[in-house]
């Protein structure tokens, strides 16, 4: 059969285009007008890393303020802006764009395509997202708001009604918040549509859906979920603006509106959003864990099914954020059950990852270290999630530091860990140079230690009754010592992230040359040059299994013999 001949090696012979003779301005222009999925992917990642530093700095200011009772580092008003901006930034300007950035960069390479399905839509979406972020931050200088010129949103990232009504937030800071999220939300929708179209129509010859890398599968599911969840958020923002400027009364309780309706809109977005963020992290683990364990992923069909199940069930659990708003006992019981059920497919994933490592030869390179950290923390995050799904327990712990600890375990312990893993893993592909392993290990261990000092401790503060969103606390509560510890951990993480930044820059100029396939991996992106040429592959690859490069490297024992 003709297509038994793998055509991948052809593409290896391609040398990257010479760009040395371009001036700086020409290169800049090239980046601004680009529709290349790889450049856009890198732009997304750089943009998110920039905001990661900004929102991280906000978090550190928050932690300085909470070092001890009655501290005076930030005023109440500034503290409220900072925690609102920290949350909004991390979710909308860091989490979503960076994960979509990876998807953008990797999916066409992994499925053997030359670009995304709609390259121009891709560029348009990126710039919408980028300008959404700038609009949000412009509020610091342009957001003439509640407390005079120089305001920023200060209603919490959940922006509960009616605090957002004009009666309580008379300035424009809340408008900046709503508009920025609408704008970047449209960018997100565009990218989601693009990913779905790409996965459905751009796969190379031989790559059936069942042979697609799990990374692409999960991003496909995530994109579908994004389409469903961003929509109610955008609708709610528009309703909010109607309330504020056109005399609507959706959420305006002074005129008979409902505060609870906002919560429903927000959380029907907000809960699936957690999975929109965490499934790309799963996607990353699905690529890295097998390669560094030297084994095929265990239970590929189960992994796909579990992802679809998570996406589906996650649409029916939103009111577990509302156990304290006075729902009936039957609703509380229903949302307890549906929430617990998400734990089942999630558990399947964890078991499959452990089974993938089982019997392997695990290499502890930096990407794998971060992935193991992810597994451990995600396990704990899942278990504290089960605790919170128990609605009576949630009546105690809702809006306490326990919840803060729980979701930072998910967002930092799982997602940020895997974002770091992904950067260590794919940086060689994107730049042609390895990141320093030595700095990488420092980064990993410091970040791990700092993470646990901070977020493990927060669970206890929750048990001791410390609510979230408070700019200071009373000395008689016995929270001093633990808050001090939390803050110290925060700074250790800050140092780790600085090491990471140094590593990113230093390795770009001095890092070891990577070669095409530094990790001895199996998916198609490693079959082309590092960095890949603009057209990705000189000839369209043809694949016969889930691990085309394995087949190539082990002609005596190829995967397609075992896969049905």
């Amino acid at each position: 059969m003709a297509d038994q001949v793998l055509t991948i090696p052809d593409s290896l012979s391609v040398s990257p285009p010479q760009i040395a003779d371009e001036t700086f301005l020409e290169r800049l222009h090239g980046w601004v007008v680009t529709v290349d999925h790889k450049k856009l992917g890198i732009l997304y990642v750089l943009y998110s890393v920039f905001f990661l530093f900004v929102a991280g700095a906000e978090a550190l200011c928050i932690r300085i303020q909470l070092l001890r009772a009655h501290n005076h580092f930030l005023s109440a008003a500034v503290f409220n802006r900072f925690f609102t901006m920290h949350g909004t930034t991390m979710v909308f300007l860091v989490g979503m764009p960076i994960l979509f950035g990876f998807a953008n960069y990797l999916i066409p390479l992994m499925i053997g395509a030359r670009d995304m399905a709609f390259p121009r839509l891709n560029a348009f979406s990126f710039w919408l997202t980028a300008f959404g972020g700038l609009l949000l931050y412009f509020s610091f200088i342009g957001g003439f708001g509640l407390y005079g010129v120089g305001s920023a949103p200060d209603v919490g990232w959940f922006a509960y009604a009616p605090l957002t009504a004009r009666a309580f937030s008379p300035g424009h800071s809340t408008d900046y918040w709503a508009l920025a999220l609408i704008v970047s939300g449209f960018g997100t929708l565009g990218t989601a549509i693009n990913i779905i179209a790409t996965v459905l129509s751009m796969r190379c010859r031989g790559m059936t859906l069942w042979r697609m890398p799990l990374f692409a599968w999960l991003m496909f599911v995530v994109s579908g979920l994004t389409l469903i969840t961003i929509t109610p958020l955008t609708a709610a923002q528009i309703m909010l603006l109607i309330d504020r400027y056109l005399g609507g009364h959706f959420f305006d309780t002074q005129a008979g509106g409902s505060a609870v309706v906002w919560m429903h809109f927000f959380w029907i977005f907000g809960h699936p959003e957690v999975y929109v963020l965490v499934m790309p992290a799963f996607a990353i683990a699905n690529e890295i864990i097998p390669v560094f364990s030297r084994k095929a992923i265990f239970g590929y069909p189960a992994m796909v099914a579990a992802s679809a199940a998570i996406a589906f069930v996650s649409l029916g659990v939103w009111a577990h954020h509302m156990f304290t708003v006075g729902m009936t006992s039957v609703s509380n019981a229903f949302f307890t059950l549906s929430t617990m059920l998400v734990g089942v497919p999630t558990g399947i994933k964890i078991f499959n990852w452990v089974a993938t490592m089982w019997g392997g030869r695990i290499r502890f390179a930096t990407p794998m270290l971060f992935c193991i950290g992810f597994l451990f923390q995600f396990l704990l995050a899942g278990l504290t999630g089960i605790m919170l799904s128990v609605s009576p327990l949630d009546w105690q712990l809702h809006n306490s530091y326990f919840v803060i600890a729980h979701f930072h375990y998910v967002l930092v312990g799982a997602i940020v860990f895997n974002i770091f893993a992904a950067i260590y893993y794919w940086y060689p592909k994107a730049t042609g140079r390895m990141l320093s392993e030595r700095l990488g290990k420092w980064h990993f261990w410091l970040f791990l230690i700092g993470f646990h000092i901070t977020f493990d401790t927060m669970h206890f503060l929750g048990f001791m009754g410390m609510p979230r969103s408070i700019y200071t606390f009373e000395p008689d509560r016995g929270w001093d010592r633990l808050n001090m510890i939390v803050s110290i951990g925060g700074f250790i993480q800050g140092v780790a992230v600085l090491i990471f930044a140094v590593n990113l820059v230093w390795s770009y100029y001095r890092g070891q040359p990577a070669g095409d396939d530094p990790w001895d991996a199996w998916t198609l992106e490693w079959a082309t040059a590092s960095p890949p040429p603009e057209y990705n592959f000189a000839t369209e690859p043809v694949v016969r299994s889930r691990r085309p490069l394995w087949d190539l490297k082990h002609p005596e024992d190829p995967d397609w013999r075992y896969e049905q």
Partner: protein
Amino acid sequence: MGIGFLLWTRACFAADTVRPSSPINIFAPASTPASEIYHLTLFVFAITGAMFVVVAGLLCFAVFRFRARKLYEASEPPQIYGSNQIELAWTVIPVLTVVVLFLATARVIFAIQDAPKPPAALDVTVIGHQFWWEYRYPSLGIVTANELHVPLSHLNHPTSTYLRLTSADVDHSFWVPQLAGKTDLIPNRVNEMWIDPQRPGLYLGQCAQFCGVEHAKMLLRVYVDTPEQFTAWVKDQHRPGNQDPSVAAGRRVFETQACMNCHTVTGTAATGRFGPDLTHFMSRSTLAAGAAVNNAANIREWLKSPDHFKQGSLMPAMQLSDQQLDELVAYLSTLH
């Protein structure tokens, strides 16, 4: 791990018994809803703890046992692609666990939320304001603020207190961990919760839903009174507002400044409802929802500049002269 958490917090508090107010902690319940939750918590900790030990154990074992001896070994381990039996096993076991957890939880949900209301129960309406609490006892004709008094409940003749919660402005949440879980106060809506505290004393908590600038200083103090204490307190609250002629000057300031638009003192022209009722202001040990101790020096400071204790509180600084301040403090200090 759960048990570890528990022992740790317990140990923490053993050392802290000298504190004047009881330490806040969900593991020291003093009322039925809180102790129901506490027992459920122990059960959930046991199950999740066991799951943690098993899975984390497997993970650690795998990482340790299957580490590569050299960074790059030439040969690859045997490739295993999956197993339907195993997948089935680790689907079914979690499902069974979920069923058990759910049944235990459902029992507690219904026990707390759908408990029949005893006829002798005391009703209190709690109204959240940016950034203070209003308490109304419709059956006793009492209106007060910031410090809630409820009667002790004996197991043989329970006198539980039912709180009807609503809000005058934005969302708030009532959370005193040792008495019950939290319930939100939402404008245009009435929520209900109940407590039956079984140990007298002072219980602390605070607003648990972000409600604006001073959310952090919307503190909660609940006094659980013995029957005698409670009767005495009710009697005090029923006394008419103080008419002491020696502080007439201060009273005049109060009635001629904007104070009267926002505050009520029964027996005077002041009938405002925007701020706390001050008729028995001195019966409270703190001022401004727990932001400061209630003494003459602090009252003076508060009147001069509320921002000193609570930046962004909705009481304006009134630009009063020193003499007016002194007269006002003298007057307020008589409002027992």
